[in-house]
């Protein structure tokens, strides 16, 4: 029985849908692009179905209002009344990360040649989103407070002697933000999908090996894989929530200097 080497990295490969070399032209329609479009389509379809403006919302409209109200609450709670102006970006980031996390975890692989691709498992995507968040923070902070924005690095009531120690630390912690913000959803999806892949391989290899030991391992890992699938859905939602929450907290720092 071919045990084979498990190759959990294969699922993250970005490949053009037609043809097999990226070198011919840099603009190819890849599986990543396809799944971004699918995620976009799902979000638009979901929102479109709920935008009925009925006085008594139906089920679908209630779901959409729940989503928009949830994100609206995040921005309002952490930024304050000015939070509405930043709602478009926070809402976009939240729904995009949530939808791609969940769509990527769906078992479309049962249908042959229909492999789901988790867009957020690429650092280029989440990194670009965190850079946008960081750019908003810098832009809003500098535009609103001009050079007083740099008082962000000196917390309120710092003794003068300590300022020279605190300011560099605050500066480093400020500059690390875009990395940690983008790394978090990426690594969560990356690790989760590796885990699912490895466990799935254990199931298959245990069955191939046969015998009470093989089937026992297979059954045990299958049960584990179900729980990890559920955990993956939860982590996908939490990561989207944390991205939205941290983005609005950072924007809050820029809008209302602390």
């Amino acid at each position: 029985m071919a045990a084979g080497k498990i190759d959990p990295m294969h699922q993250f490969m970005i490949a053009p849908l037609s043809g097999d070399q990226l070198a011919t032209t840099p603009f190819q329609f890849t599986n990543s692009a396809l799944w971004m479009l699918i995620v976009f389509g799902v979000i638009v379809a979901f929102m479109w179905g709920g935008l009925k403006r009925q006085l008594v919302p139906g089920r679908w409209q209630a779901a959409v209002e729940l989503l928009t109200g949830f994100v609206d609450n995040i921005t309002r709670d952490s930024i304050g009344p000015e939070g509405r102006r930043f709602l478009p970006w926070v809402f976009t980031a939240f729904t995009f990360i949530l939808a791609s996390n969940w769509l990527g975890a769906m078992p479309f692989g049962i249908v042959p040649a229909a492999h789901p691709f988790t867009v957020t498992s690429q650092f280029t995507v989440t990194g670009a989103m965190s850079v946008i968040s960081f750019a908003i923070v810098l832009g809003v902070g500098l535009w609103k407070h001009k050079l007083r924005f740099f008082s962000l690095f000196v917390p309120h009531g710092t003794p003068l002697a300590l300022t020279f120690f605190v300011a560099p630390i605050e500066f480093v912690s400020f500059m690390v933000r875009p990395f940690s913000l983008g790394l978090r959803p990426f690594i969560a999806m990356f690790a989760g999908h590796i885990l699912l892949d490895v466990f799935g391989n254990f199931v298959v290899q245990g069955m191939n090996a046969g015998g009470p030991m093989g089937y026992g391992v297979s059954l045990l890992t299958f049960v584990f894989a179900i729980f990890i699938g559920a955990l993956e859905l939860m982590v996908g939602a939490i990561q989207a929530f944390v991205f939205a929450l941290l983005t609005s907290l950072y924007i809050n720092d820029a809008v209302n200097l602390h």
Partner: protein
Amino acid sequence: MDLASAQVLGAGLAAIGVGAAGVGVGNVFGSFLQGALRNPAAAAGQTGTLYIGFACAELLGLMAFAVAMIILYAR
């Protein structure tokens, strides 16, 4: 020591970090519960902070796991 056994050992060592993150996540939720049971009225407003702490602790464990897998399956 050949490369294959070094890979397996390295992956096992890297997996220790997952256990450390487990301590961290348990600490986050445990501390939250301690506070929440003493003052349940204030607990509802702090779930956002709870999940930030959870995500920060969880991230490090996931990174340890990803590093272990990269070491294990690097070619």
